[in-house]
């Protein structure tokens, strides 16, 4: 196991943040390589547990992983160093884009590029609906939950936050009634 100084934690997670393009889940193999294989900070089986916890905690998945590993190695300061490191590249990158995008976005060619991009983004978000539905093990008795949730948001403008809170609370009490909790 190599030394995990605060700087090393910050630098390792900045590097991971810089090289993951396409969202949080793309980070997992990179984190595993650096954290488990290269530095030996976390054992392989612990890493799988850690992923499960990071997934069930709220917030940004990749940042949660950084927080857990930073905390495990160096306490609160480690959690701060690792999580700040993990977001640094994206914050810098988006700031640069925001700075220049405002002056570029009225060019005809930029507008045309986004006319092509926007309908593709819809497909990018629609496709995971089916894969997430499979991993959420939706059955004939639970299929009404996603349908009702989507309907409330789209047709009635209900905030997704209320849906999350209600679904969680309802699940807990249903578990209590069924004697699972």
């Amino acid at each position, binding site marked *: 196991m190599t030394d995990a100084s605060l700087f090393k934690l910050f630098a390792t997670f900045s590097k991971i943040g810089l090289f993951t393009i396409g969202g*949080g889940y793309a980070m997992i193999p990179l984190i595993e390589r650096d954290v488990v294989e290269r530095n030996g900070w976390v054992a392989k089986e612990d890493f799988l547990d850690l992923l499960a916890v990071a997934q069930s905690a709220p917030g940004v998945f990749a940042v949660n992983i950084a927080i857990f590993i930073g905390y495990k190695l160096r306490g609160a300061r480690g959690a701060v160093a690792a999580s700040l490191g993990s977001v640094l590249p*994206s914050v810098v990158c988006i700031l640069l884009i925001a700075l220049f995008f405002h002056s570029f976005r009225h060019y005809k060619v930029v507008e045309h590029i986004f006319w092509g991009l926007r309908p593709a983004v819809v497909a990018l*978000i629609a496709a995971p609906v089916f894969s997430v539905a499979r991993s959420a093990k939706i059955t004939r008795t639970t299929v009404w939950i996603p349908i009702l949730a989507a309907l409330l948001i789209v047709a009635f403008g209900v905030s997704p936050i209320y849906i999350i809170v209600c679904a969680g609370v309802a699940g807990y009490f249903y578990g209590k009634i069924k004697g699972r909790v």
Partner: protein
Amino acid sequence: MLLLKLFVTFFKIGLFSFGGGYGMLSVIQGEVVTRYSWLTMSEFTDIVAISQMTPGPIGINSATYVGYTAMNNAYGSLPLAVLGSLTASLAVMLPSLVLMLIISRYLMKYSKSAGVNAVFRTLRPAVVGLIASAALLLMSAENYGTFADEPLRFCVSVLITIVAFIAMRRKVSPILILVASGVFGALFYGFLQ
């Protein structure tokens, strides 16, 4: 005050988002577009596209971008805009950090407890609905044009969505799909003129 509002909103987004980037997208959309109109639906779509092609998680990317845009639109000042983006980005991380520091010792146990299992039994299906709603809300006139005003753009846009959807189901890389549709847009609409 806008800065405080940004902080509170992104803290809430960080606290109530479950189920990864796509689930979070719906919560961000609900607060940032529907509730506060800090971004239009097409600006929001653009930031999702940009997020997919740049480093980092969508939650952080959109916090940075929204913080910048909201402050820039309100005050037109670069330092304030940068302050807004840093505030929003830190706010979205803060709930995870606090939660971690408070319950770290119980966290490993917590994630396997019967109570958490019961909560996720209904939460997970709900997140599927959230993702679906995000996609449905993006099927807007802003993003597609309307059949009445721009019939060609509307039909081409629908076609792009269908082709991109099939490509996604066949595991083509999302980055490749976005690059291809951007290049297609530039060439196709460029030649039309």
